[in-house]
């Protein structure tokens, strides 16, 4: 009996079938590409519409900025990822955070001799707002955190230390390239000298330093003016 599928004829047939499938595959891929291009076009024009509608909003409104950032995160997009491109050019988001980063660096450098390069996020926020003046765009703490994260990535020696629900912002000039324990030591000595920190020698192997202002925050009490006087000279 003859068996189908075996023999030169079968092989040739198989090859033809494969070729046809391949062709079909190419056709399919081309279809898909056309589809995707169309979708991308739609997506792009939607984005452009979004951008023109909301660009002002993004620059002016911190709350809106947070929501915008969260939306981007959900779809896996980082609008600050690159200096060029759609996000920074169309929306100007990159510029906003870049400028903010510069301001943050200015504030930290100006105060470094006083606080040893450590500043609470609250104080940083206050000073940045002051520096921006009445008519500039409002800036939230969320904005500061994002700007600092970007600064970190660029290797400018910025860091954030979580403390009691907020952050301490640490600035070290990149060129000094210090070991962070050395920096903290300097900051601690500096804080002690300035009377901003109290020494705790019963914390264990290492001495610990406490900031009365943060302690008050952590214990969530209202500090009376008299108590505030008792904390620092």
């Amino acid at each position: 009996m003859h068996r189908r599928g075996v023999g030169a004829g079968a092989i040739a047939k198989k090859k033809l079938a494969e070729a046809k499938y391949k062709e079909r595959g190419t056709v399919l891929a081309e279809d898909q590409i056309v589809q995707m291009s169309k979708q991308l076009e739609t997506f792009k024009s939607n984005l452009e519409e979004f951008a023109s509608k909301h660009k002002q909003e993004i620059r002016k409104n911190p709350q809106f900025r947070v929501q915008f950032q969260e939306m981007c995160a959900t779809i896996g997009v980082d609008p600050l990822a690159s200096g060029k491109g759609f996000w920074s050019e169309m929306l100007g988001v990159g510029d906003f955070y870049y400028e903010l980063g510069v301001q943050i660096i200015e504030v930290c450098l100006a105060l470094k001799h006083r606080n040893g390069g450590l500043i609470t996020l609250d104080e940083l926020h206050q000073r940045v707002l002051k520096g921006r003046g009445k008519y500039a765009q409002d800036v939230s703490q969320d904005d500061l955190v994002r700007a600092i994260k970007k600064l970190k990535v660029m290797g400018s020696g910025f860091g954030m230390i979580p403390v009691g629900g907020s952050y301490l912002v640490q600035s070290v000039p990149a060129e000094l390239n210090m070991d962070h324990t050395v920096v903290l030591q300097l900051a601690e000595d500096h804080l002690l000298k300035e009377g901003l920190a109290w020494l705790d020698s019963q914390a264990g192997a290492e001495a610990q330093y406490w900031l009365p202002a943060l302690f008050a925050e952590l214990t969530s009490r209202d500090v009376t003016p008299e108590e505030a006087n008792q904390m620092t000279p």
Partner: protein
Amino acid sequence: MFFRTLTAVNTASTAMSFEWPWQYNFPPFFTLQPNVDTRQKQLAAWCSLVLSYCRHHKLYTVDVMEAQESPVFNNKKIERKLSVEAIQVVFEELRKKGNLEWLDKNKSRCLVMWRRPEEWGKLIYQWVSKNGMNNTVFTLYELSNGDDTDGEEFHGLEDWMLQRSLQALQAEGKAEIITMDDGKGVKFF
């Protein structure tokens, strides 16, 4: 004479519980601060705490060794205690301010005057005048433990302090201490 010490305080006997200042729960408060300015603030707060604690519990004498274990200098909740050296520094501050007197050369026991003798004298004299008891003679015991003085702040005042207070009044010409057969007495003018 019955000396009440810091450790023998029966907290149940105090009507209102003592309110600790915020520093009491701040761990570094129990480390003598190296920064001079910060130390000044710290010592001021310690002096205030010691005096108000003694006032609240009506304590007049402190034994330094026992003091280390008292809740004032030993906060078990945050696991911090003031060292003996630091306690001495606090006591020296109190002495300089006139609120403390050492009972011995070794500085192991002291009198804590959360109210100075002059201030006590004033209170006693006020009570005497208010009740129209000028020119009456009292025994010391009547003043500190009599039924009439029950409820007054100086009721229960320890003998050594009572005598000093009366001496202060005597110096002001408001009283005269009299020696009687079975002890001392005082006449108020």
